[in-house]
C-alpha cells in the first residue's frame, strides 16, 4: 500500500464525515436556535456510538433537539416518558398471547419503545431504579433480554436521556453504574438574548418547520467506522489516562481538590470516552490523529457525570465541573508547561 494512496482515502473519509455532519447540524439547526455546543455534543455521541444525558431546566428544547435529530438522520425514533410507576416490561416489551392463523395461540414478543435506533428517555430520573436498570443492558450490550429470549437492538442505537436538575421531588437519582454508561453529560443552558427573538419567531408564527432527512442508519454506521479508524498517538493516550487518573482521589496526578472533595473518580470508561470523543473532534478539525487538545476539549462533557463529590465537596458548594477544571489545570498538555 503506497503512502500517498492511503492518505487520500483518509482525506476522502474525513471529508465525507464533515459533510454529513454539517448537513445534520444544519437540519437540526432549523429547529433548534443556538445551543451549538449541545448539538455538537449530541452529534459527537451519535458518531462515536455513545449515549447522551441531557440536563437542563424545562423549556430549553431538550426533547425537541433529540426529536429533530431523529428526523434528520431518518432513524427509528421512540420516546419514553419515564414515570415512577413505569415497569421494566413497559420499556423493553413483553410476551403477549396472540392468535395464530390456524386458530391456535402462541406467546409472541411485543417490542417496547426501547427497540428503536434513537431512544429519547425523557425525565429518566423519574423512573424507579428498577426501570432505570432495565436500560443498562440496552445501553451497554445493545440488547434486551425478556425471559429466556435475548434480542439484539438495531444499530445505530443511541439513548438520549433528559433530566431536570430542579424538580427533584419524587425522583430517583441515576446510579453511578448507569451514569458511567453515558458517553456525555451535556448541560443545556438558557439561550442568549438574541436567540430569544429567533425562538419566538419560529415557534409563534404560522410557518411550520419541517426537517428533511439527510442521512440514514447505514451512513451513520459507516461514519462510525471512520471515526474509530482515527489513530491516537501514544502521547495523547497518556494524557487521557492522566486526566482520568487525576479525577480519582489519591491518584498520582490528582490535585488536592480531588483528594479532598471527590468520593469517586472516573472509571476506565472515562478514558475510552475521552478518546472516542477526541476522534470525532479531530475529524471535525480536519486532522488525522487525535491531539491532546481534542481530549481536553471534551473533558467536561465526558467526566462531569463520572465524578462524585463527597460530603466536603458538596458542603463547599463545588460542582463536578469545578473538579474537572482543577484536573485540567493540574495536568497540562505536553508543551504547555514550558
Amino acid at each position: 500500500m503506497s503512502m500517498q494512496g492511503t492518505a487520500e482515502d483518509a482525506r476522502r473519509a474525513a471529508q465525507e464525515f464533515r459533510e454529513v455532519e454539517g448537513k445534520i447540524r444544519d437540519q437540526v439547526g432549523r429547529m433548534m436556535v443556538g445551543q451549538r455546543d449541545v448539538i455538537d455534543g449530541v452529534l459527537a455521541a451519535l458518531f462515536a456510538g455513545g449515549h447522551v444525558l441531557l440536563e437542563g431546566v424545562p423549556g430549553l428544547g431538550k426533547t425537541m433537539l433529540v426529536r429533530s435529530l431523529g428526523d434528520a438522520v431518518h432513524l427509528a425514533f421512540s420516546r419514553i416518558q419515564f414515570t415512577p410507576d413505569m415497569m421494566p416490561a413497559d420499556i423493553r416489551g413483553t410476551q403477549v398471547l396472540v392468535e395464530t392463523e390456524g386458530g391456535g395461540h402462541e406467546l409472541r414478543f411485543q417490542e417496547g419503545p426501547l427497540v428503536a435506533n434513537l431512544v429519547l428517555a425523557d425525565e429518566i430520573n423519574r423512573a424507579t431504579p428498577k426501570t432505570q436498570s432495565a436500560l443498562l443492558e440496552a445501553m451497554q450490550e445493545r440488547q434486551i433480554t425478556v425471559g429466556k429470549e435475548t434480542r439484539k437492538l438495531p444499530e445505530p442505537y443511541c439513548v438520549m436521556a433528559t433530566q431536570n436538575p430542579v424538580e427533584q421531588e419524587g425522583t430517583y437519582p441515576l446510579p453511578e453504574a448507569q451514569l458511567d454508561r453515558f458517553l456525555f453529560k451535556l448541560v443545556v443552558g438558557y439561550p442568549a438574548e438574541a436567540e430569544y427573538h429567533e425562538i419566538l419567531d419560529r415557534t409563534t408564527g404560522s410557518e411550520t418547520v419541517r426537517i428533511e432527512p439527510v442521512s440514514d442508519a447505514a451512513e451513520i454506521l459507516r461514519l462510525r467506522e471512520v471515526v474509530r479508524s482515527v489513530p491516537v498517538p501514544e502521547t495523547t493516550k497518556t494524557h487521557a489516562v492522566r486526566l482520568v487518573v487525576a479525577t480519582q482521589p489519591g491518584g498520582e496526578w490528582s490535585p488536592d481538590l480531588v483528594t479532598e472533595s471527590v468520593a469517586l473518580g472516573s472509571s476506565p470508561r472515562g478514558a475510552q470516552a475521552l478518546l472516542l470523543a477526541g476522534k470525532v473532534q479531530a475529524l471535525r478539525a480536519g486532522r488525522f490523529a487525535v491531539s491532546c487538545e481534542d481530549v481536553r476539549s471534551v473533558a467536561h462533557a465526558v467526566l462531569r457525570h463520572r465524578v462524585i463529590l463527597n460530603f466536603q465537596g458538596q458542603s463547599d458548594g463545588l460542582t463536578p465541573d469545578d473538579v474537572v477544571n482543577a484536573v485540567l489545570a493540574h495536568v497540562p498538555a505536553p508543551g504547555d508547561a514550558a
Partner: protein
Amino acid sequence: MSADAEERRQLGARFDELYRRGSRARLARITRRALPRAVEAGLYASLVLPLGLIATALLARAGGPNPRDFGWLQALAGMAAISAAVVAVRLYVARSRPVERAEVLGECDRLLEADGRLLAADDFVRAGATGPFVAAALEEGRTQLDRANGLQFPAGPDVPGVRARSFVAAAAALMLAWFVTRGEVPPVDQLADTDTAIVPALPTNPEQHVPEKPVESEPPAPQEPRADQPTKPATRGERAELASEGTPPSDHVKDSKGRTKGGRSSAAKSSSGSGASRGAPSSQSQESAESEEKAAPGKRPKEGKAEEPESERKQDEDASGATAGRGSGSGSTKNPATSDWTSKDHVEAQPDDDQGEDADVDDEESDSEARGGVQPSLRDRRPPVNRDLQIGFASGRPDPDANGRGGPSPQKKSRGVASLVLGVPIPDHIKGRANPGRTKVTQERVEPEAEDSTPAVAESRRARETSAGTIERHELTPWMRELVRKYFERPETAKETTE
C-alpha cells in the same frame, strides 16, 4: 529498504533534529530560570562556614580547635567555595531533569499552531504505525516540520532576580566570619565563669575586647579544689559568697557552717547571712525577697532546713504566731486562728511554694546527714493519718486534722472535688433518708367568675371557591435530605452521636 521505510527514517531524523534544538532551548530556559534561585541558595549557604566557626568556638571551651586558627582569607575562600558548590549543585539538579520529547514537540506544535500534528507524526514514525489516517498524519507532520525549520524558540518569561534578603544573609555571613576569625575568644576560665556561653565568645564590639589570652591558661586560684571541699564546680551560691566577701558573717552563719558539710551549706550561708533579717518587722518581706534573689531557687529549701533547729528551739513562740519581727527567708506560715493543735512533734505547714517534692527529699537527706544518718525521721512520730474525707465538723467548724495529708493542719485545701467549689464546704454525701423534702402548700381563696362565650351554630358550608394558595411544605428537598444523610453517615459524626 523500501521507499516508505526510507521516507520514515528521514522523517524521524528530522524530528530528532527538531527535538535536539528544542531541548537545547528548553535547557537554556531552565538554566535561566534556576540561576537566580541557585545564587540565592549559594548566598544563604555562605552562612554555613561562620556558623561552623561559632560551633568551633564552642568546642574550644572543651579543648577543641580554636576558630582563630582560621585566617580571615581562609574563611573568605571557604565561604566562596561553599557558595559556588551550592550554585553548581542547584543548577545541575535543575538541568538534570530529562527534557521529554513530548514536551519539546508539544511546544513546537503550540508555537506553530499545528494542533498536535508534529507530536502525532513523530509518535507514528517512532511507533511504526501504518494505515490511511497514519499516512495522512505523517504528511501533515512533514509539512509542519518544514515550517519548524525557521522556528525561534522563545526565551521564556522574565524571571525575578536575586532577592535582596539573600545579599543581607551573605553580608551577615561575612561579618560573622570576620568577627569569629579576627575577633576575640575569651579564655576557657572566663567562659566557665559566666552563665552566657556564646555571646561573650563572639563579641560584636571589637573595642570592648579583653586583651588576648591563651585559651589554655591556668584557672584562677579560687577554682582549685581544696581538700576540705568536694570537687564540685563552682555554683552560683559560691560566687555570691565571693561577691559578698568583706561582709562579716553573722553568728547564725557560723552555726550553719559548723553543722553542715562544706559545699552543701552554701545556700544556707548566703540566705541566712543577710544580717537585715533580724531588723524591723515592717521590712521583713523585702529582706526575704533580697535573700531569695541572692539564693538559687533550688537551694531555698535548704535555707529553711538550715534554720530548722532554730525553729524547733522557738517552737512555743511559733505556735502562738508570734513571728513578727523575726524575719526569715521563708517566713512563718503558722496561722493560730485555724489550728489549735499543739504538740512537741508538731510540724509547721510550709507554704506550698516552699514544699516541693524535691525540697522534701532534700530535707530528709539533710536531716539524716545532720543527725548522722541514724535517727528516724520526724514524721515517724506524727499522729496517725486522718482519713476522714469530711472537710468540716457538723457544726461547721473546720476539722484541724483534715488536711488531706494525714496530719494536723489548717482547713483542708486543694484536694478533691470540693476544692473546685470555691471555698464552699460541701460534704460528699448527705446523711438521712431520701425523700422529696418538705412541701409547701399554699391555699388561696378565689371566688368563681362567670365567663361569656359564644356558642357555635351548626350550618351547612359550601366547597371552597378559590384556590387555597401555596401550601408551604416543611420537608427537606431530596438533595438536602441526601446531604443530611451523608453527614450523619460520616464516621466522625456517627462516633460523636453514639458518644
